[in-house]
């Protein structure tokens, strides 16, 4: 029999790390010396997916750039809970300007670095779904179209959480928000609305577009790392469940993100120059019910009785994703 390095089958490549893994097999998050770009003491809710996603992404970016990083932040939960005077939770050069201008501000930072001949310092811009798909879409599209050297990361929790869970252009159909109440003929957000930014980004033919979730840390880190090997405009869309806005248990944050991918509702893929080149296959496919059930924003679909019509519609959306992004392995 072969005597090659035996893989650590307990966790393979799925857990954060393991005492027996080689260094090159460890995730950034498993490193005791990780930056903690977003460190303790921030004021995010218990079980905040965005806090997790931001630390995952920026720690990975910090490692990829050897700490030569500047981050620009749009207004939103992330910005509010991380920098209320007099305390900042960031451990990276960080700038917050406005709600809708993070991509343009990042462009300015990148332009300044270029003018100064600084090629080592890289720029990341980040914002929630509201800042990204709605109010900041113009500047984002401009940043894409000019192919400015910025990695833009959207932490998508599918509504305006900072202002109290109002509907955004990224709110999924049937979801209850403070402005799409679960009442009337079509409870929750309407079908046939909303925009899917990854595809809008791809339409700009930028070098790199990818989606990820906080449920697959290694995938997320790999994508940040890959993005950092490229120049030009890059876009990463990260699903970050929000216990407050979604009405889920704080302990279920990662589980829900995982179910979003395993149900097919949130496709995880990579696109280079506007073409999808890879997608994460579903390991244990589940019906959308499994995902929806855990969230109060969908409770109207299950009580007083199961709303078959709406749930079937959502299932069809998931099935379409599975087909379109080839989410089932051969």
């Amino acid at each position, binding site marked *: 029999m072969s005597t090659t390095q035996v893989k650590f089958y307990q966790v393979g490549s799925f857990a954060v790390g393991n005492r027996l893994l080689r260094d090159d097999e460890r995730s950034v998050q498993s490193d005791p010396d990780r930056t903690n770009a977003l460190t303790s003491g921030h004021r995010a809710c218990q079980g905040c997916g965005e806090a997790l996603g931001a630390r995952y992404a920026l720690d990975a970016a910090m490692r990829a750039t050897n700490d030569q990083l500047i981050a620009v*932040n749009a207004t939103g939960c992330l910005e509010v809970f991380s920098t209320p005077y007099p305390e900042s939770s960031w451990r990276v050069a960080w700038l917050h300007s406005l709600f809708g201008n993070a991509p343009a501000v990042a462009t300015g930072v990148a332009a300044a670095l270029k003018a100064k001949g600084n090629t080592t310092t890289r720029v990341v811009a980040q914002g929630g779904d509201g800042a990204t798909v709605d109010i900041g879409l113009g500047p984002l599209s401009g940043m894409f179209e000019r192919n400015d050297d910025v990695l833009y990361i959207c932490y998508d929790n599918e509504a305006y959480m900072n202002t109290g869970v109002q509907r955004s252009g990224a709110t999924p159909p049937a979801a209850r928000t403070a402005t799409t109440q679960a009442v009337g003929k079509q409870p929750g957000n309407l079908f046939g609305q909303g925009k899917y930014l990854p595809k809008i980004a791809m339409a700009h033919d930028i070098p790199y577009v990818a989606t990820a979730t906080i449920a697959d840390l290694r995938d997320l880190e790999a994508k940040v790392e890959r993005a950092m090997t490229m120049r030009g405009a890059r876009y990463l869309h990260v699903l970050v469940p929000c216990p407050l806005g979604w009405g889920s248990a704080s302990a279920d944050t990662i589980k829900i993100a995982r179910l979003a991918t395993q149900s097919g509702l949130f496709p995880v893929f990579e696109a280079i120059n506007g073409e999808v080149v890879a997608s994460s296959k579903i390991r244990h496919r589940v019906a959308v019910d499994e995902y929806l059930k855990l969230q109060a924003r969908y409770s109207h679909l299950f009580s007083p009785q199961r709303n078959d019509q709406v749930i079937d519609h959502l299932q069809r959306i998931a099935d379409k994703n599975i087909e379109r992004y080839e989410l089932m392995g051969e």
Partner: protein
Amino acid sequence: MLRQVEGSKAVADAVAACQPEVICAYPISPQTHIVEGLSQLVKDGTLPNCEFINVESEFAAMSVAIGSSATGARTYTATASQGLLYMVEAVYNASGLGLPIVMTVANRAIGGPINIWNDHSDSMSQRDSGWLQLYAENNQEAVDLHIQAFRIAEEMSMPVMVCMDGFILTHAYEQVDIPTTDEVKAFLPPFVPRQHLDPAEPVSIGAMVGPESFMEVKYLAHQRMIDSAAKVQEVAKDFEAHFGRKTGGLLRSYRTEGAETIVLALGSIIGTLKDVIDELQLDGKSIGVVGLTSFRPFPYESVAAALKGAKRVIILEKAFSTGTGGIVTQDVARAIEGMGIKDFTVIAGLGGRPITISSLRNYLTNAMAENIDRLTFLDLEIDTVEVEINKERAQR
């Protein structure tokens, strides 16, 4: 070098002589020739270490400027009218963050109705934005003010708006002395930011500030603006020392010695006024003019000193506050409080309405006899508006 050149081109060359590192702009008349000129200089390599960003909106223009200035780059942009209003949120943010951005406002009216011609409604709408506002009398001053603006901005860590009348100055060809890059270098040291984004020394810029500190933050901005008046004067003096020209500063008086009536105005109309004043003085009239260069900071003491001894002051404004009247008037009135000087306001040149010498002569003649209202709209088609007023009132 002295050249017969279009105002916009002159400003473009002057800005280039200041060696900006990032220029971003979105086109809007009458600002376009300035940024076209700069784009040319970046593209043809005259400005080798400068990035020119064609942005998708004025909001983005100011946002890019915020990002680059916060990264320690000397940053310039230009706009006008609707464009300035479209970037307002970022305009306030730039001053709030204390970023020394220099912006040209090619003054133009604000719609609706849409109107592309000159007045001061755009920059006046940003009176309270925390930006310095310097108004150019002619293209020579426009050129000089840009060079002074970078130094004031960077030494105060505050953004500066250089306002020049759209078309009247931006599109006018006249002779202008444009300093060379080397001459400017001797006057304007390299930009050393008060703070900037640096991975080696990271900070978090743009915190959320609550009720416990917001008032203090704003009060500090207030004091900074007040202190900037001294800086504006100091820089103008030093500029004169370097270039031998008396431009910029807080204000300049023309033939006001012992004048009973003093006209106070901003921008390019001052030139026309000087001609009118000369005529009137030939007729033995006691009248002079004060050209206000610095509207923000507003130089209360200097204004009071300049108007001391006069019986009346006429404030000529190219913008007004709907329902109340003069904007500059409010500040002038405060400056001369208790000095026994009467103030009158004349709103003129809105939306590009020509301000003719004859109209001015008429108005000022009446003014000296105090044969005018506190508030006058120069050359208003009174018959037309009266018909309309009656119609409207009848319909209510």
